[in-house]
């Protein structure tokens, strides 16, 4: 990697080299048993240079040719955007607990036994479903060096399990999924990997007519992504810079219910985005975004920070809005781990308060609707009818829509005490809101 940096120094004023060596071992079970096991060993570099004041970017897997990689970035810069971007000049130190040798040494045989136990547990509890189980260990070795003197490296490891069950009866197909990530191998047990799915499956025994109208909705931690996605966009430094965020002028204002708090926390090792530094080498940090309903901060990468005249909050990541990219994509502004403050009520308490409503666990078509304005509009694939304070069965062919900003300001009924990790990097409780537009399709 340092060869590449030296080569880049020769052709540009500023340069940054990101080097990833990733080793992962995914195993997949389907109804036929274990169907495949794969060892994935990927290594690549991404180079950013500023040459004649312009930004260029190139990636390669051919580490034997450092000059070629540097030249590719420099030639991209020749036609690139004029950019006052400066690479990170100070960086974080590796984070404790983000790497476990015990994960690195798990072999396929051990993963296969664990997968088999998970698979068996599902089929014992629900013999009528098809179950698929995916288990994976990942070890990423990230190195980053730049011409400002940053030179850091970190090893990060993760083990994950994802379970999906499908129940088919009388032309009705019901698919339910859940996943867990852990930094320690023993955190993934057959019980932990299946508890939520089995609970939701049991509640889905009966199909009941779906309600319509302006109704209260309880979002499970997984379902709450429908509400949170507009906020994740709206709090991004990029949306603020482009002034397409309704929060752009609202720093210090009370915009949400006082029970709502959101923290971006790149240092929380239970979240899959944890690390000592982001993909631009900036130290990870804990940034309160919303405190007691008040907008406190936005999150920035180096570029949006420069455009806005603030400091990066360590939110430069490869990959899309939710990050998780490998070495290929250029870094952009993205959340690290989002921690949504929990409440004191259990999910059952939240449901008990509702006369007629819906519990939503999985939505389809994320991102439909005018997200920038806070609007969401989703078909639900896993949802339940709430009547007189309890769940009476599963509903289907239902569409929910509303405005996340309005619902989380005026219509928050309560937050659960059941916060859990979903999508790897969001730690979210159940969220109950009133007045969601619920439309049952005939």
């Amino acid at each position, binding site marked *: 990697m340092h060869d590449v940096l030296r080569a880049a120094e020769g052709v540009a004023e500023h340069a940054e080299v990101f080097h990833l060596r990733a080793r992962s071992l995914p195993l997949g079970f389907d109804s*036929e048993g274990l169907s495949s*096991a794969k060892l*994935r060993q990927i*290594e690549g570099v991404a180079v950013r240079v500023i040459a004649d004041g312009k930004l260029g970017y*190139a990636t390669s897997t051919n580490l034997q040719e450092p000059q070629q990689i540097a030249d*590719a970035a420099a030639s991209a810069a020749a036609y690139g955007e004029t950019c006052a971007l400066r690479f990170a000049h100070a960086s974080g130190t590796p984070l404790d607990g983000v790497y476990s040798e015990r994960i690195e040494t798990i072999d396929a045989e051990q993963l296969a036994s664990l997968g088999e136990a998970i698979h068996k547990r599902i089929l014992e509890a629900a013999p009528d479903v098809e179950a698929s189980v995916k288990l994976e260990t990942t070890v990423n070795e990230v190195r980053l060096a730049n011409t400002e003197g940053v030179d850091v490296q970190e090893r990060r490891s993760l083990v994950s399990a994802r379970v999906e069950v499908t129940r088919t009866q009388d032309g009705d*197909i019901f698919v339910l999924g859940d996943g867990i990530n852990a930094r320690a191998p023993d955190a993934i047990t057959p019980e932990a990997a299946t508890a939520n799915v089995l609970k939701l499956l049991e509640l889905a025994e009966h199909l009941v007519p779906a309600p319509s109208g302006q109704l209260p909705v309880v979002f499970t931690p997984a379902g709450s992504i429908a509400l949170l996605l507009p906020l994740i966009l709206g709090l991004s430094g990029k949306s603020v810079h482009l002034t397409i965020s309704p929060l752009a002028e609202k720093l210090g204002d009370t915009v949400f219910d006082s029970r709502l708090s959101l923290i971006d926390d790149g240092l929380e090792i239970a979240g899959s985005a944890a690390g000592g530094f982001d993909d631009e080498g900036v130290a990870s940090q804990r940034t309160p975004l919303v405190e007691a309903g008040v907008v406190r901060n936005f999150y920035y990468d180096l570029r949006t920070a420069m455009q806005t005249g603030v400091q990066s909050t360590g939110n430069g990541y490869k990959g899309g809005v939710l990050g998780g990219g490998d070495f290929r994509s250029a870094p952009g502004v993205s959340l690290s781990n989002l921690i949504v403050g929990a409440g004191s009520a259990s999910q059952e308490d939240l449901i008990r308060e509702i006369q007629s409503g819906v519990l939503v666990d999985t939505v389809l078509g994320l991102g439909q609707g005018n997200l920038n304005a806070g609007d969401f509009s989703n078909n639900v694939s896993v949802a339940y009818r709430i009547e007189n304070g309890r769940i009476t069965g599963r509903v289907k062919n239902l569409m929910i829509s509303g405005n996340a900003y309005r619902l989380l300001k005026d219509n928050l009924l309560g937050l659960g005490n059941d916060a859990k990790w979903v999508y790897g990097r969001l730690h979210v409780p159940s969220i109950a809101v009133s007045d969601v537009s619920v439309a049952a399709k005939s």
Partner: protein
Amino acid sequence: MKQKIRDAIARSAADYTEVRVERRWLNRVLFQRETLETLETASEVGGIVRCLKNGGWGIAVFNDLSQLPSCVDEAVRLGDVVAARAKEPVVLAKVPIVEEDVRVELEHDFRTVPLRKKVELTQAYNMIILGESERIVATQVQYLDRFTEVTFANSEGTYIVQELPDITLLLGAAASDGKGDVQQGMEMFGHAGDFSLVLGKEEHAKTAAQRAVAMLDAQPVPGGQHTVLLDPRLAGVFIHEAFGHFCEADFLHKNPQLAKIMTLGNEFGVPELQVIDEGYVAGGRGNVPYDDEGVRRAKTHLIKDGRLHSLMHSRETAAKMGAEPTGNARAINYEHEPIIRMTNTYIENGSSTLDEMLQGIDRGIYAIEAYGGQTEFEQFSFSAAYGYEIRNGEIGDLVRNVVLSGNLFETLRSIDAIGNDRELSGGVGGCGKGGQFPLPVTAGSPHIRIQNVTIGGQ
């Protein structure tokens, strides 16, 4: 290289071993509003080993070619782990052994075009869109070229090298009325060919911008049951998304309920209805001389004379179901094993002219292009990019929010006229399945007329 690969395969203790090595070069230019958002150039080398040991698949992926021999050993070991826990051993259908070198010749090879030219061209289209109207508030103009050389070898003796070019252009505009309403206009081009595809698209850039603006004043389509005329692009997306995926044998294998409906010989539509997946169509983004199992491309009639005729197979599903492999086992890149995917999928020409089809419609909707959609087994829902009202056989006003939904099998049976103006298009993205996205494909159709389609208003 050839010797290295052959040596690595020779050392394998598996019953079947294959190696695929890819070299790929990519350039991407993206403008958003006034800004050059992305300028990216990439070059990659990587490979994958797949071994069948006692009927279990073991797989290893690598970048460092010197690791090939150890990856073979690793894949064999993993195959053993899988075989011990698989219910049924995997068997592969027999296919001919092939030794071939398939090179492409591009008249205006995009690899020889300087990056500067690509940036300038993209920027020029972007400026046209920005300059078209004051109501244009955002643009998305992307140029992408990709050249891949794939080497495939297996322990049966097959050794194939093939080159796959792919080039796409997206001209996207967003217009706003200043009161919160934002509408889009898009023109998309993609083919497996040379640089000429992206030249001379100035009028299309204008069209994209003008449509975004015009959509601001378009009325929402009235909801309800309508006679609908689909343009070739939307009909192509429909046949790929709503029907094509059901013809992938691995999908049916996991969905026994649907497999019952998808029995060969079952009647799905009028006798004039022909649906085909074909591994070669001039310029088609789905063109692959050989798939990623080394199987020669084919022309597969999914529906012949209105009846289900054939499915798409890999060597594994072909052996399981007693069919022939169809050249549809594809992977998006060397990090993935091949799964059953479409190539170029289309409804074949029928006999009606566009005029004849319009004449039969007193009140209906002309739905054009697709912005996306979702399918959940038999149920589908697609958003047309835009549409027009049809009254008394005449195309009328522009309408928006055209969302078509329904049951696939009922909808196929309700196709009552098939045009004679087939067009295929590659678009700019690709198909997604099993975590592998985007895979270059094309889809197409002539205009088709469908009775009683549910159109959602809002």
